[in-house]
């Protein structure tokens, strides 16, 4: 096993702030929307907390964006431009999660400093970070003060449309908050990826000698 430094400090700060923030947003969001079912804190407290946490996460988003824009680490998000390669890698990754992992096959993706995401992660995170998260923050800001942004709310089809988009992405993140940690536990040990996001160092298996390589 070798150790690779693949999660720099700003990424780790951003990640854990995001994790705590999103859990708080989901919890307060659930109470705001389902007050008849959940009453952990007073409604007003839930609304105020939801707003504040939202603004913290918006600032946090720009920390993430700034870090990747001004360092060469942005390469980890570079898309695979060859569709054939991309879909082949995605298919292999899906095959691994859906079948190979049960048999104990090795993960087809090999982590490196500039290639830390597998094909599925790479596409998902790009969509999340460049579309879902910004739209969620934007609709959140509009709903934070509907009167102040009345013209914009109207332009997007009214408060119901804006709220529906916000709730649809809230539902997506609620699912994400369950799936993401589970997938993170599918490393060579259940805690390896979690540790990597704390220490910054990912344990990577040494390359196994290829079949027949020795006889050459």
């Amino acid at each position, binding site marked *: 096993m070798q150790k690779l430094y693949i999660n720099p400090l700003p990424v780790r700060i951003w990640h854990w702030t995001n994790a705590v923030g999103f859990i708080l947003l989901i919890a307060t969001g659930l109470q*705001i929307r389902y007050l008849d079912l959940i009453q952990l804190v007073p409604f007003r407290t839930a609304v105020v907390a939801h707003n504040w946490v939202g603004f913290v996460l918006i600032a946090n988003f720009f920390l993430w964006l700034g870090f990747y824009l001004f360092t060469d680490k942005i390469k980890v998000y570079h898309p695979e431009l060859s569709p054939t390669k991309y879909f082949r890698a995605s298919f292999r990754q899906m095959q691994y999660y859906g079948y190979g992992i049960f048999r104990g096959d090795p993960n087809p993706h090999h982590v490196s400093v500039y290639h830390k995401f597998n094909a599925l992660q790479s596409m998902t995170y790009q969509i999340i970070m460049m579309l879902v998260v910004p739209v969620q923050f934007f609709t959140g800001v509009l709903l934070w003060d509907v009167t102040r942004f009345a013209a914009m709310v109207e332009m997007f089809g009214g408060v*119901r449309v804006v709220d529906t988009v916000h709730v649809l992405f809230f539902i997506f993140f609620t699912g994400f908050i369950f799936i993401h940690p589970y997938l993170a536990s599918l490393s060579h040990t259940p805690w390896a990826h979690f540790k990597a996001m704390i220490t910054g160092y990912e344990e990577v298996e040494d390359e196994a000698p290829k079949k027949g390589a020795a006889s050459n």
Partner: protein
Amino acid sequence: MKSSWILDKLIPPASSRSLILATMAALLLSVPGMATRAEDGDLSKETKACLKCHDKEGMGKKLENQETLSLHVSTKAFVESMHTKNDCEDCHSGIDAKTHGKEKAVIKSKREYSLSMQGSCRECHKKNFAKYEDSLHAALVKEGSKAGRKDAPLCADCHNPHTLRSVKIVGPIASTPCAKCHEDIFKAYSKDVHGLERIAKGKTAPICFDCHKTHDVKAASFGDGIKDSCLSCHKEAVNEHKDWLPNAALHFEAISCPVCHVPGAQRRVNLRLYDNVAKRQISEKSGVPLFEKRTDGADLQNVGLDERALLSLLREFNQDGGQGKTVLRGRLEVRSGVEAHQLTEKSKAIKDCNTCHRAGAEPFQSVMLTIASPDGRPLRHGVQKDVLNSLQATESVRGFYAIGSTRIKLLDYALILVLLAGIGGPLAHMTIKWMFRRVRAQHEAERIAELAQTNSQALPNDRRADDDASK
């Protein structure tokens, strides 16, 4: 001048006039109530002459419809009235002194007579009369003349011209003419926070006309007039609400003040047809009753408009004035005028968000679609309450949304599905992984064995290479 002409007719001319007047004065001074009559000094001779006959209790005239029109004018009340400086003939200019009291003038009814006298008020009160003509009251009068309605207020119904006193003099709550027609509302007001303060502190507290205007009275449910009236006194209200109420400005826009400040009231959602270009509530055109025709057509069983009917209705209205012009603006309000006048002190006002922001909240159990009639009064048609929770109403009810209570049900099902998938997916994956544990162990053993075999094959080759090197 007309006054002297009447005087000439009523009182014999020249030399005998002074004698008669002296005799009249002597008679007046000889009767009880001299102190009161002493105040008559400011009245003109002509008015005094009129009052000589008309200040008799019970004096009246039988009208065509068998009503009795009182002809009694109390001198005391008239002297104390706002019209004390006017002469009788300023208003009653049509009286012919030759025939007055001798020939019977034909008057159909009290109402007819009051209507005929309206013009006299306009002569002096031009500004207020113009406001009145633009008011709901005047609209009702016009409507009444067609429909035979007899209770719409004319000037004299609110302002008795012979006893009218300045609002600076009258008691703080007494003599409010509005109470004559709006008795139940006035009773409610007299017990609410404004009415009680009016009784206790006098004119510093608002009474009817402070909110509803005096002459240009509009339907209370029309526009934002009443809310603006509240804010004209409670200037800091928006800022004070901002201290504790998230999105306070939106609450002010979408909720009428009594919704929270009358805790016991029944509430409802009022979806108002609104002109989004002109930025005002839509009024039905006079003589073109489209609203009732269209709502009745869209709701044949009279069970309330559903989301489809509401959307198609909105499209019909948009055909009249261009796409997107007509929208629905929702507002929470109390259901009756009486409830709107039961305002409580602010410490008792509703501050609990639970009242509205939960599924099945009471204010959202009744929904109305409203348009203003030509005179400003609301025309309503019921809407099914489920419309507020329907995805199909996203377009029609686009401007009205209350977190929690009007949430779209379909999104709730989506959340349940995602939660099931989010929890069930990993659990299922873990289960399958557990079931495959032996297969994995077997593969791992095979892999180790294969690795060991590879290593053992590689080792002799390495040794041979070492031996060759040593040679």
